[in-house]
């Protein structure tokens, strides 16, 4: 099964997200990229991930506020490249700013989810994400 790419710079959020997925029996490998550069390196098998095995992830969970290259730019590049254009991208962010939402959808994300403070809700969000993007959604084989 294809991995899930989690692009998240906050270590606490990373731990919580991983725990949430575990708790919800999501068995995919979860690759964590801690900034935009790492994310792109993984996707295009360059830099620190040069020569990696395997194809595209099943879904990309993308935070917006990232160091080095920020989330929107990563999204832009994902959508700009033939190889990665069709991968589902879920923006998972704490930003409630209208403009971030609009910009993300304009750039072609598939979903925009706000990280709730309440962990229960967070868990629920993770479960739903897993249900949908991993099980129900028909993604392209590429």
């Amino acid at each position, binding site marked *: 099964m294809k991995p899930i790419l989690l692009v998240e710079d*906050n270590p*606490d*959020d990373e*731990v*919580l997200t991983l*725990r949430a997925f575990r*708790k919800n029996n999501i068995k995919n490998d979860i690759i964590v990229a801690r900034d935009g550069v790492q994310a792109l390196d993984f996707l295009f098998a360059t830099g620190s991930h040069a020569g990696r095995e395997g194809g595209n992830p099943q879904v990309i969970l993308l935070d917006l*506020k990232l160091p080095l290259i920020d989330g929107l730019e990563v999204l832009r590049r994902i959508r700009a490249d033939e190889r990665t254009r069709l991968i589902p991208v879920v923006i998972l962010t*704490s*930003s*409630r*700013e209208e403009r971030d939402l609009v910009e993300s959808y304009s750039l072609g994300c598939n979903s925009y989810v706000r*990280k*709730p*403070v*309440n*962990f*229960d809700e*967070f868990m629920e969000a993770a479960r739903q994400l897993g249900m949908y993007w991993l099980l129900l959604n028909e993604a392209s084989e590429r």
Partner: protein
Amino acid sequence: MVQPEIETVTAKSVLLRALPIFLPIALVATCVVYLLYATQEAATRRVIAAGQKQLVEVGYTSLANSLAVIGNDAEFIAQDPFLKRWLESRDDRSVEPILAQFQSFARHRGLYEQIRFIGLDGVEAVRVDWNSGAAAAVAPEALRDVSGENDIRQGLKLEPGEIYFSAFDFRPEPGRPAAPQNASIRVAAPVFDAAGHKRGMVILSYLAERALDRVRSLSTRGLGQAWLVDSKGRWLLGPSAADAAGSFAAAQEGRSFAELHAQAWEQIARSTGKGQFDAGGDLHTYAAVELPDGAVTGENILSSTHAAPGVFLLTRTPATAFAAFSRGLIRSHVAALLGTLLLLAALSGFIAHHGARRSRAERLVRALNQRLAKDNAALQSVNRELESFSYSVSHDLRAPLRSIDGFSQALLEDYGDTVDSTGRDYLLRVRGAAQRMGNLIDDLLKLARVSQSELRDDPVDLSLLGRKISAELRQRDPQRNIDFVIAPDLQTRGDGRLLQIALENLLDNAWKFTARQPAGRIEFGKARQGSEEVFFVRDNGAGFDMAHADKLFGVFQRLHAVTEFEGTGIGLATVQRIVYKHGGRVWGEAEKGRGAVFFFALRGGNDEADIAG
């Protein structure tokens, strides 16, 4: 806002402004007035000159006529048939009819002092004198030999058709006192008998005073004063009586026209006919009184085709007269100019003053506008800073909260069995606190955003908003049994976004405080209070104690314990700020345990609407 420094309108600044307005116009006005003066002066000069010409013309015509008349008279007498007959008979007795004829003639004409017939020997043969109004025949004894007189000599030389005119002079008759009335002109015509032989001459002494009177009468008729001057430049009729009188004999020593006005006389004496010229500023107008055709003068015997003038009729308008007139003209024009300039100065001053005031006002406005633009720009930049601040605050504050809550939960779930109930309780409190802080951040952000934004003025359908919000609330807690009564026609004008937030807060409050009611009822509608229309949100929930109503809208102020009803205490503060921004007011009434109603009116009754936020 401090008033910008604009210099006041001083007298000096007004003066500086007025000068460029005043000077060009003043210059033009002066030129115009000068032109008017010059034109008028020239015109008047011309009028005067024309008047003088007319005067001289009239005088000339009159004199010329007189001379022609007396010439004719001389001829008439010379051709008297009685005379001819007497000449034939040479009878002394037949002198009577001639005398009678002469007398009659003299009486009728009234022009002649003497009418005489002189024989070829130069002796008076017939003579009629004019004595104080009567023509008297002179006795033969009184007849004289006048062959020596120049007049007689010239007269006896006359050919047929010629008439002799003597010079105009004051030669008194022998035996008569010299007097001004003695001015005379002698006219003579030759007498021929039937056979054509010259037998003598008739000579008439014309009372030249009459001619002078005619010239004098010109002045009484308002045409002006004209003088007569003889061919030597001596006064015949002059400005003063003495010039014409018996002093004539003294040749007017030093005072004749020729001597007094030598330059002018030179020009006149040279010319014939009429003319007008300026000599040294004095205007001279003259006419040479010509003798009629066939006249021969006493000065020279010329052919009948050329008559030298015997007298000159002239007028002189001295430069001083012009000067006097000019002065008057100048005075009136200068007065007019001064008046105009004064008016212009006043006008310029007035215009300048207003112009200065207006431009000062404009500068003030510009400066104020600049200040305003600057203030606006500063305000906008502050707003932008605040927004980015809010944004980062909300984002950055939330992340740690998430961690607090998340790991507390993780602890509970994964290590719950190692923690006792107290521990679990602590962890729950930690989670609750994190949750509340998250809500607080959200609410504070909303409150801040309300103050920042510019108020829009659109039509807002409050009923629609109410329905939307109530639907969301139901969706949040589907198990709640709540009755929403929303009036259908709640319309107003304002900022839709902000009004939605306010309504959300009010309805959310109502929702919260009716949580314990088995049959909750929330009503949103409008009512009439006095003269105005107000909106209200009424619930039948917990209500509150009116004694503390003044704390209702304070930030973070709560009238209930957080254990009873959740809430950050910011909701109503937000509602109040939004309503105030719309220029309205909001208040609440309640009864503990029976419910509460919050009224709000937009626009009207709020003096603080002008104050931002």
